Structure formats: structure tokens, C-alpha cells
């Protein structure tokens, strides 16, 4: 079953200090040709891997999709239904940086079919925004939400980050308070991780980055769980919270180990059992599509064991965890049989719990997620 598409727009107007996504500084980039070529790629892709179902979720991410002009973005968005069959109730998300989209862009998006936004707020603290080199002001988040609603896009998510350099509990509480006071349906909150090839990585190696201790990070996470719950957000995944039914169906597709198309430079797809990574650098990607090739950098056929591993380490991210019935249906054996001893050990450690229907992380297990997930990797040799 393959009913999701991810489309990557690798341009940003300013580069954040923590960012190791595949992105390029917007100025002087061949944006128009890039859009033409992603549309080309859509065409080749469905030819090679025909749809199995109508598309139920689309996610246009980046980079910063809204760094495109209204015309450019429109061209991209309108190409999607030309090449793919969309379901009636498709969930269509676009990532938005506060300040980079206004009335006109939102109206166009709405008209093209977009019905969900993921707004990169990160923090409401002006100092912290500066420290991570985001170019918006806190008020612009509220402004963005207002304009989106006016344009008729109602399913709104806000992205937040914690564990930032010198981050205090007070700042974090304020950010959360301000976020829940908005008429939004969804919050994603990730802790900062320092990745190579970023400004923060450089700073860290020079000893110039003061990151919060694990204790504080854990406290921030615990506070968030409690606070968001009180505010009516349900933690349906480690880092994702929804009001009512507003779960991100696109992300659920990843966590449920379903397949998806990936379009654009550096995009990933999972089709017919293959995990594919596109060329990241623009010249490579573009050259390859121009030459009528699929822009694949690597193709990996997921083995049966890998599928089971992924089912577990992705699935356990969800509050509902991994369904035993589904696992058995997909892999013809029980979780215990596939991973002998693992669930028992993890239960003993207090990180995993079991109901008649499913396995899921305990609250402590959530905080130590990677330690748990690691146990579901078969030894490599």
C-alpha cells in the first residue's frame, strides 16, 4: 500500500544554525528550473512505480517551501493532481516559515488543495530565535496562524524545539503557553540535536555552545507532556501532539512502516520494498532529471529482517505502539518469536509494557527511546 507523497523544496532565505537538512541558500538558485524538474520527476516516478491506491497524504517540506514565490509554489502544487490520483479527503500539508507567506500565498495554497500547515515556530523567545538564526519574530507566528485561518486552512500544526543553547525552563514554559493559546490543532516538539556540518557543531567543538544537561531536557519533556495534556493535546507519538482527531496522517504513514513516494533533491522514497534516496546536491539532481533519468543516489532493498526492525523502532514511537495482530499479519510470527528475549528484558527494565493487543513504551521508555529501539536491531554480524 502506497498512499503518501513527500515533496522537497530545498531553498531557504536564511540558514538556521542547527540545520543539516538538504537545503540551499535561495539567492541565485535556479528555482524555476528546479520546479520544472520535480514535475518531470513526478511523471517518471508514477510511470516506473504506478500508484496502488489514491494518494491520501501529501507533505511539501524543505528547506522552506514558502520561500518560493506564489507563482512558483502554485506551479509545483498544481502539478501534483496532474500526475497523481488524489483521494477525496487527502491530507495536504505544506511547511511554512513564519513571515514567508501572506494572504495571497495562503489563498493560492487553499485553492490548490492544501488543507494543513506545519508552521516552523521553534520558540517564542526572541533571544533564542536569534541564537538559532531563525529570521522571524515571535509575533509572526500568531500572524501566520491568523492569515492561514482567514484563507480557510484550518488544520494547523506548530513546530517547537527544546534543549536549545542556554534554554531555561521558564523560556520553555512560555513558549508552550503561547503555542497552546493559538487556535491550532497540532504540535510537534523536538529536542535539539547537534549534527555535523552545522554552525552549532562548529561552535560545540570550539566549546562555545552551552547545551542544557540531560536532567533539564528530561524535565522539559516531562513538563510538556503534562502541560499539553492539560491543554487538550493528546501525545499520540513521542514528539507529536494532537487536539482531537487532528493526528498527522502523513507522519503516521512513516511510523506505520507504509510506503511513500519522495520527489525532489535529497528526497527519500519507499516503493515496492525499496528505500531510495535521491541525489541531494542540486546540480546532480537536476542533471539527472534533465537526462530523463530517475535521480537516485542509492537504492536499498529492505530485507525481511529490516522490515521487522523498522516496524518496531518506528512503530514504538507511537503512543499506541505496535499492534501484535498487525505484526503477525505482516511477518507471520509473533514479536516475541522475531526478537527472542528482547521484549522480556525491556519489560523488566521498565521501558516497555504489553497489553493483549499491543506493545508500547512506558513513560520512562519514551525518554530513553533510542536505548529501546536499538534492542530491536538484529546484531549485524
Amino acid at each position, binding site marked *: 500500500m502506497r498512499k503518501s507523497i*513527500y515533496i*522537497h523544496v530545498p531553498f531557504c532565505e536564511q540558514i538556521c544554525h542547527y540545520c543539516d*537538512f538538504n537545503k540551499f541558500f535561495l539567492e541565485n538558485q535556479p528555482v524555476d528550473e528546479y520546479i520544472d524538474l520535480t514535475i518531470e520527476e513526478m511523471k517518471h516516478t508514477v510511470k516506473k512505480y504506478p500508484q496502488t491506491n489514491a494518494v491520501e497524504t501529501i*507533505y511539501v*517540506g524543505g528547506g522552506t517551501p514558502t520561500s518560493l514565490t506564489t507563482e512558483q509554489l502554485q506551479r509545483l502544487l498544481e502539478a501534483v493532481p496532474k500526475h497523481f490520483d488524489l483521494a477525496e479527503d487527502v491530507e495536504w500539508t505544506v511547511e511554512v516559515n513564519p513571515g514567508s507567506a501572506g494572504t495571497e500565498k495562503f489563498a493560492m495554497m487553499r485553492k490548490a488543495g492544501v488543507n494543513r500547515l506545519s508552521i516552523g515556530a521553534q520558540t517564542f523567545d526572541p533571544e533564542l530565535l536569534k541564537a538559532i538564526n531563525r529570521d522571524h519574530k515571535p509575533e509572526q507566528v500568531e500572524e501566520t496562524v491568523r492569515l492561514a485561518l482567514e484563507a480557510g486552512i484550518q488544520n494547523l500544526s506548530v513546530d517547537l524545539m527544546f534543549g536549545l543553547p542556554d534554554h531555561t525552563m521558564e523560556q520553555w514554559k512560555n513558549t508552550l503557553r503561547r503555542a497552546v493559546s493559538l487556535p491550532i490543532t497540532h504540535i*510537534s516538539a*523536538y*529536542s*535539539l*540535536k547537534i549534527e555535523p556540518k552545522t554552525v552549532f557543531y562548529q561552535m560545540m567543538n570550539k566549546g562555545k555552545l552551552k547545551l542544557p544537561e*540531560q*536532567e533539564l*531536557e*528530561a524535565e522539559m*519533556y516531562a513538563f510538556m507532556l503534562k502541560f499539553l495534556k492539560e491543554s487538550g493535546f493528546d501525545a499520540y507519538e*513521542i*514528539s507529536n501532539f494532537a487536539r482531537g482527531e487532528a493526528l498527522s496522517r502523513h*507522519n503516521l504513514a*512513516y*511510523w506505520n512502516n507504509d510506503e*511513500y513516494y*519522495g520527489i525532489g533533491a*535529497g*528526497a*527519500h*522514497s*519507499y516503493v515496492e520494498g525499496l*528505500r531510495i*534516496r535521491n541525489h541531494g546536491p542540486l546540480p546532480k539532481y537536476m542533471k539527472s532529471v534533465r537526462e530523463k533519468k530517475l535521480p537516485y543516489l542509492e537504492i*536499498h532493498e529492505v530485507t525481511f529482517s*529490516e522490515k521487522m*526492525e*523498522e516496524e518496531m*523502532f*518506528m512503530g514504538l*514511537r507511537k503512543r499506541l505502539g505496535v499492534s501484535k495482530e498487525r505484526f503477525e499479519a505482516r511477518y507471520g510470527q509473533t514479536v516475541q518469536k522475531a526478537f527472542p528475549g528482547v521484549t522480556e528484558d525491556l519489560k523488566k*527494565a521498565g521501558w516497555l509494557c504489553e497489553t493483549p493487543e499491543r506493545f508500547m513504551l512506558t513513560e520512562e521508555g*519514551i*525518554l*530513553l*527511546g*533510542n*536505548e529501546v*529501539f*536499538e534492542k530491536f*536491531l538484529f546484531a*549485524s554480524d
Partner: protein
Amino acid sequence: MKPEDRINRRDRIRNFSIIAHIDHGKSTLADRILEKTSALTSREMQDQMLDAMDLERERGITIKLNAVQLLYKAEDGKEYIFHLIDTPGHVDFAYEVSRSLAACEGALLIVDAAQGIEAQTLANVYLALDNDLEILPVINKIDLPSAEPDRVRKEVEDVIGLPGEDCIPASAKAGIGIDEILEAVVKKVPAPSGDPEAPLKAMIFDSLYDPYRGVIVYIRIMEGTVKPGEKIKMMANDKQFEVQEIGVFTPKPVPKEELTVGDVGYMIASIKNVGDSQVGDTVTHAAKPTAEPMPGYRKLNPMVFCGLYPVDTNNYTDLREALEKLELNDSSLQFEAETSQALGFGFRCGFLGLLHMEIIQERIEREFGIDLITTAPSVIYEVTKTDGEVIEIDNPSEMPDAQQVDHVREPYVKAEVMVPNEYVGPVMELCQRKRGDYLDMKYLDENRVNIVYEIPLSEIVYDFFDALKSNTKGYASFDYELIGYKESNLVKMDILLNGEKVDALSIIVHRDSAYDRGKIIAEKLKNLIPRQQFEVPVQASIGQKIIARSTIKAMRKNVLAKCYGGDISRKRKLLEKQKEGKKRMKSVGNVEVPQEAFMSVLSMDENK
């Protein structure tokens, strides 16, 4: 070849080494000489061409000697055959130099025009004199703005006693003075003597192991001639082999029909067992052996010891093989099996110095793909027990209980530090702090001073070198020799993780510095050992007494960050890396300890 051709050829051979203090430009000069003489195209040419090991290229230093054959058309119109041996400059590899020199008749002594004579310059000059070599002084790097060729020329005259006017001013980098150097080699380095028709007498000055061809020995022919197909024997053990291939390095190995007097090259003779050929041994014909072997080399005794353990205990035999193969072309390396409660089976290894130790460790990891845990280096202590028995220990964990120890003696070295005037103060302060006894101080000229101290070897091993460098902005040069044992107030300090003593982390320290060292180590370990699922106390103790402590807090949080664009492979890689990382750690008690921790007791800068 006809006998008279061999004589004629012999007279056109010049064998020489390049010697100098570290970084004075030996390898760079070798590059220039290669360009002027050999068939290397400039495309084949790389900087420091003869530094073939990756490790040498990365660090920009020479570790192994390297021999090449070159052809040089001299001003007199004749073509000469040069055998050039580039050597390392660092004191730890002095052994390589002494072997190279034994294969030569002359040496180019490089002195940096800005730095002047340094400790290893002198040490190498004495080695060259011992080997009766013709020394040709070259003042290199005259292109540097800070070059002072005239001062250095005078230094050569005053300190070494070679005539100043013989010094050739040169710049290996800018290609100045290279022709003069080559002509001097032709005119001043004596041709080899020795009878090409006499019984074969060839000295093994190096060897290495090739998985396909067995041991490859590097030989210098002193007398006689050798050809493929001949039966030869090693004089040390009488083992016989048939020569399969002989040849020279250009620097690529090039097979030859014969090697004769004066040749420096290689020999392959299906020697499968690494123990069968020893560096310093003499090769001769099995049927018609030479009367006397060459005197061989003085084997240097290791001064620094540490434990080497495979991270993966299954690699124990691989590690033994790796050590055997390295020993083959580095006979100053010593090892014997040992066991540690914390680390399992491994080897106690002896090295000439710290750099030597580091290099061997790195070569094992790279060339043999074995992950290692290295314990802190130690020296050999001499312990007199209360019952009068005297024991030698090179591993702190063997130290008897304090009640059984009457007294402990430790090795001392005579350390000579050469520095510009203005650093005399800091150097003396450092030597005092390192428990040194002042011996002597001499002005070499108005500006340079030679300071002599007796210092415990363990302090040198610990961090003397780094401290010296940082206290003198790198201007000091330093050399040392072992002088014997002296009594010291030494105690064993243990480290406990989660209440459990970790034998591999024990060290022997002077009582006066035990508290400070204990504190530093406890702090270091706290930072190096990742958080575990529970809190882990780290303690340093002498006997029963805890003298320092720190705590590794329990892990509180470890979750994947943003799931971005469906990049599952990235998450997988992260988890795999995490899992792999744990495999590379040693489980001590129930604490996962990374490799670096075992070395951490070593690298500590008190000034920081």
C-alpha cells in the same frame, strides 16, 4: 655481469642516508633528489614521496626508513648509482636511523637554517660517526625569512666540529642547492669497498611482511653477489631458503637479475615464518658461506610499557599475529601475553617512547583492522619487599600491597633540553615540578642554552613532552637517555567504578602528587564514560583510602530527533552506530567503558 663490470659498477655507487632533527626537511630534500635523478614523472611525484604509509603522510613525519635506487648523471659525465635512505627524525625512531646508517658510507646532515642544531641533530651525528660515515652538512630552509645560515654554519663548526665552509646552503622547498648536494655526494661519499666475487655477505637492515609473498627482507650487499634461484641461509639460525626474486626500489620495487656489492635492495625467498629472518642478521650462500657475520645492531631496550587489548576478545590471536608482523620490521617492539580482570587477554608491550607506542597502536588498528584498548603507559619499577625479595614490575596492577613493600626504585633519565635563552626559567620550573634534579647548564652560544636534569622516566612518559612544548612555544628540543634507578616515594593508586576496582586503570604515582592526579583522573573519567542507566560513582584510592571521587549521572534522555521527510535509513544508521559504539566499549562490572577511558590516566595537562 662480468667481474670487471661489477667492480666498475661498484665504484660508481654512492650509498647515503639523510639524517636530521625532526622536521628539518629530510623527506622534502629526498623529494628534490628524486626529481633530479629518477624516472618519476611529475605526475607520479607527491610531497614527501618516500613517506609511503598513510600514517606518515597524515602526520607529516617519517616513521620508517625508506630506501631507493637512483641514477645520477654527474658533471664529470659519468652516471652514478645512488642508494638513498630517508630516515625518521624523532628520537623514538632512532633505531631506524642506526640501521639505515649501517647500510651506508655517507650521510647528508640536514640542519634547519632557522632552528639550528637540535638534540636529535647531535644524536644522529654521533650515530653517523660511530658508523664511520662521511658527513655532508646541509643548511636547509634558507628561503625562510628567519633563516640565519651564517649563525648555523658557525654552530656546525662549534658544536659538531665539522668545517663551516663545507656546509651547503640549500632550500629543499625552493629547490636551491640541490645540484651542489648531488655533486658533493659523488665527490665526497666513498664508493663501497668489498669484493663482488667473494662469498655473499648481505646485511638485513629492515623487513616487512607481505601476505602473498611472505617476508620481504631489505638488504645491503657488503660482499659477493646474489641471484634468483640461489640457496641462501640466515646466519643467526642457519635456516635455508631459495631466492625467488631480488630487486631495488625506484621507489617502486623493480626486480633485477643480480644484486652485488654496494647494492641496497630487497630479497624475497618464500620466508613464511616471520621469526626466520631478523633485522641485523647476515644473509649468505648456503653452499659457500662467508666466514664472519656482520656485527649486527645493538638491540635497544624498550623504556615505556603498556597493555594492548583487543576490544573484541575474539581478536586476540589476530592481535598476536599483528604484533609479530610489526616486530619483524620494528625489532625495538617487545610484547608478552598478559591478562587483566577488566580487559581479558592481551599483551604487555614495550616501546622506545610514547610516539613509538602511539604509532604502533595506530598501525595495528589501521593495517590489521583490530580495535584496541590501550592502558596507561608505565615504566619498569623495582620493588624491594619487606622480606628482602626484589621484583621488577612493568604493570601497576602487579604492585604488592603497601604493607609488603619496603621501598620502590624507579628509572631515571638524563634529560637534555636545548632552548633559546628566554625559556630557561620555564624549563627549569617544569623540570623541578617533574621531580627533576638539576645537573648542569651550558651556553652553546649567546642565545642557546643546554639544560641538563635527571628526571624520573615516568614523568617523561606522563606529559613532559607536551608540557615542554607549551612552556617554550615549541622552541625547545629534547633528548634523553636512561641512567639507572633511584629510590622514590611511590604508591599505587587504584580506580574504582561503581565500587569495583578496575585493574587496568591502576597507576603508580609519587605520593605527593597522588591527590592531584586522583582528582584529575576521577574528573576525566566522569567526562569520558557516557551516562549509564544508573548512577556510577568513580573513586580513586590508595590502599583502602579514597582520595578522590566523582559521579557519572544516570542517563535521563536519549530519543530520536525530528523524523524528516521519511528518511528512515538515517534513523537506522543512528541506531546502528549507537549499538556498534556499545560493542566497542568494555563492560567492566556492569559499567560500559569506552576505549579512551583507559588511556585517560595518561593524557592530562595539569596546566589546564
